[in-house]
């Protein structure tokens, strides 16, 4: 029933777009038209399988890097001293990839995103070191006016709280039209038709009526859809940065929003940088994961590899402390001791050493070099071999959950085999 409805709405969008084409021959319309074609094709396929995945790592090999952060450092100069929020961060986002950045509050996820967009308030923020290459150009050297041609044109951002990111005094119609016209020189009437098409793409029911409303008249889920529509307003878009896009929403709405994001990402062949603290969202949406802790990258790899074989004590602890992975007889969750360190007191060595159960003397002195577990999976821990001999079995879901998913059983078993193989390699010595 649901698929019917969505195809219906996209048919309407197509009709509308065709009408639009007759009046306005612009390349933008062609691209959107293609996208709706793909969008209509997609639900039909998914209806057969009844289960669907948002992440798909197979076609990611040999892609060009779109965004490349090298040795990025971000500091904040405050009255209480210098806060080193990000230290030597290297992150690459490939074309068409969904990269998830995970970590607890205060680990520097949002700051990294803001630095890409050039939104860091300076002062107090400074970037003493590092480069952010976007399609080969260093964004940090750009002037304000140059950044304006990038922002919302080639890189868009979706924020956590749609209510505080939308202007409460302006109707959403004008907010979307403004976003469209800020980068494209098209008449108001055409921008209006395009705004309507965008609202249909993000599945806002009754878009003609809803675009005349103020943000407060819409629910949280609807507001977030409007935010996505604004983010997509420019056809030259290449990268979406979504900063906790579903944290403020209910689970049922969360699934709908992630659905829309995924479909649009596929149809417009965009890259997505997803910032979240929800491991459920990561597991279901991301192709690759970067785990941050206190401004440092502690683990990076393909989603399946990281979840099957978490190779940093922090990632491991994070997964184990979730109720989902809890299936021991005692009714207590695994809880990592302590809290995130205070970034004002810059300490040498690994930032996780005080909470780590397997820390060594060297952890207090130097930050570990990356250890490669496979071609895409790197972990930054001195005790990586100890870690694996401690607990050879990765956390696995309780049997009741797996029972229903028989078709997915095989890959898990293969992963465990791979994992054991990896361990043997590790015991021989790091490669």
């Amino acid at each position, binding site marked *: *029933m*649901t698929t019917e*409805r969505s195809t219906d709405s996209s048919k309407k969008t197509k009709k509308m777009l065709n009408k639009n084409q007759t009046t306005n021959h612009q390349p933008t319309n062609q691209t959107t038209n293609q996208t709706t074609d793909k969008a209509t094709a997609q639900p039909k396929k*998914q209806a057969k*399988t*009844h*289960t*669907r*995945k948002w*992440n798909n790592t197979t076609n990611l090999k040999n892609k060009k890097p779109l965004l490349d952060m090298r040795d990025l450092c971000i500091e904040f100069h405050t009255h209480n001293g210098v806060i080193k929020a990000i230290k030597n961060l290297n992150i690459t986002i490939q074309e068409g990839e969904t990269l998830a950045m995970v970590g*607890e*509050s205060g680990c520097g996820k949002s700051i990294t995103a803001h630095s890409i967009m050039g939104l860091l308030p300076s002062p107090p923020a400074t970037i003493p070191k590092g480069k952010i290459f976007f399609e080969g150009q260093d964004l940090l050297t750009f002037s304000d006016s140059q950044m304006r041609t990038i922002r919302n044109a080639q890189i868009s951002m979706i924020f956590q709280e749609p209510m505080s990111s939308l202007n409460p005094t302006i109707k959403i119609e004008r907010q979307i039209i403004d976003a469209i016209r800020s980068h494209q020189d098209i008449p108001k009437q055409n921008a209006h038709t395009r705004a309507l098409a965008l609202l249909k793409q993000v599945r806002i*029911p009754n878009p003609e009526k809803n675009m005349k409303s103020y943000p407060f008249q819409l*629910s*949280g*889920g*609807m507001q977030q859809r409007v935010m996505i529509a604004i983010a997509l307003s420019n056809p030259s878009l290449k990268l979406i940065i979504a900063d906790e896009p579903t944290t403020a929403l*209910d*689970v*049922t*709405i*969360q*699934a*709908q929003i992630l*659905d829309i994001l995924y479909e649009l990402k596929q149809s417009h062949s965009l890259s997505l940088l997803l910032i979240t*603290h929800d*491991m*459920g*969202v*990561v*597991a*279901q949406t991301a192709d690759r994961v970067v785990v941050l802790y206190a401004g440092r990258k502690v683990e990076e790899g393909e989603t*399946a590899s990281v*979840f*099957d074989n978490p190779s940093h004590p922090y990632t491991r*602890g*994070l*997964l184990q*402390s*979730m*109720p*989902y*992975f*809890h299936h021991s007889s005692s009714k*207590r*969750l*695994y*809880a*990592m001791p302590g*809290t*995130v360190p205070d970034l004002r007191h810059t300490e040498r060595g690994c930032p996780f050493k005080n909470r780590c159960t397997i820390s060594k003397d060297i952890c207090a002195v130097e930050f570990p070099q990356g250890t490669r577990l496979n071609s895409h999976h790197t972990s930054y821990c001195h005790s990586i071999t100890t870690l694996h001999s401690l607990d050879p079995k990765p956390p696995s*879901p309780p049997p*009741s*959950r*797996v029972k229903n*998913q028989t078709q*997915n059983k095989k*890959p*898990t078993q293969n*992963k465990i085999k791979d994992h054991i193989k990896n361990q043997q390699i590790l015991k021989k010595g790091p490669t």
Partner: protein
Amino acid sequence: MNKNTATPPSLLKVQALKTHYTLPSQTIRGKKSLLKAVDDISFSVNKGEIVGIVGESGCGKSTLARTLIRLEQKTGGTILFNGEEISEFKGKQLKQYRKHVQMIFQDPYSSLNPRRTIGDSIKQGLQTHAIAPRAQHNKIVAQLLKEVGLSEIFVNRFPHQLSGGQRQRVCIARALSVQPQLIICDESVSALDVSIQAQILNLLLDLQEQRGLSYIFISHDLSVVEFIADRIIVMYLGKIIESAPADELKTHKLHPYSKALFTSHLLPDPHIARNKPTIRGDVPSAIHPPSGCPFHPRCPVAMDICKTRIPRLREIRPNHYGACHLYN
């Protein structure tokens, strides 16, 4: 649903509870509209039991909690605490009730007075209820802080010097200071990070064991409620639509809404393909709720009868209650 729980005496017994708000009319002579935030809810909490309440935002979870603690006036029904009707409490009796039932709020940033030290905040309850001689208060505060895993040095600190997890511990210590029998946790761990959330959940469970506390645990995080609760109540638009022991609900979800809610929850496992969500759209407006079953416009298996008749909550499996026409 209260029949079976008669053997152990129930601490809190709620019957046909209603909390309605009258909203001002949109025009001068227009009709005033009625918002039924909590509509005809019955359940009970036994001593030492953890009752979890789940539902989407706007389903009346928080209003229910606030009505139970008398921050909101009920419109109808009864709330019996140890067999006594709480809405008739006044003066001393009400003060006593507030001592027995404490609440931990969602946001530890706004629920602590920023101008009071942690010690002062915790001491307030002790002073108001004259728990012990004033001379012993400092000692009790230190003891409470230790119990929730904070060191004694926090006594003289202010809330802004503490992290979110530490503040939530202070809120728990404050709730415990008056030796309550029932604690209502309204989204108490939702604002916390995963690793801190696990610490706080373990702490709540430890305290329950040591002190024989009961909890009403309200959350939108289904995995947390599934883990901590003995009994889970699923709410939708002010009504209970399903209620069952946690283990029973894990394996047999009856109501289409419960099924949809739990399948929408994303599992942290990349090998399990998520189920396609069975419901679409938002929660309908509580001011103009749909006719019949409030869930029928979003229900994937809605029938004709759902549009006209409101299903009643009945026992469908042993000790498992549901409100759905499918099981008639």
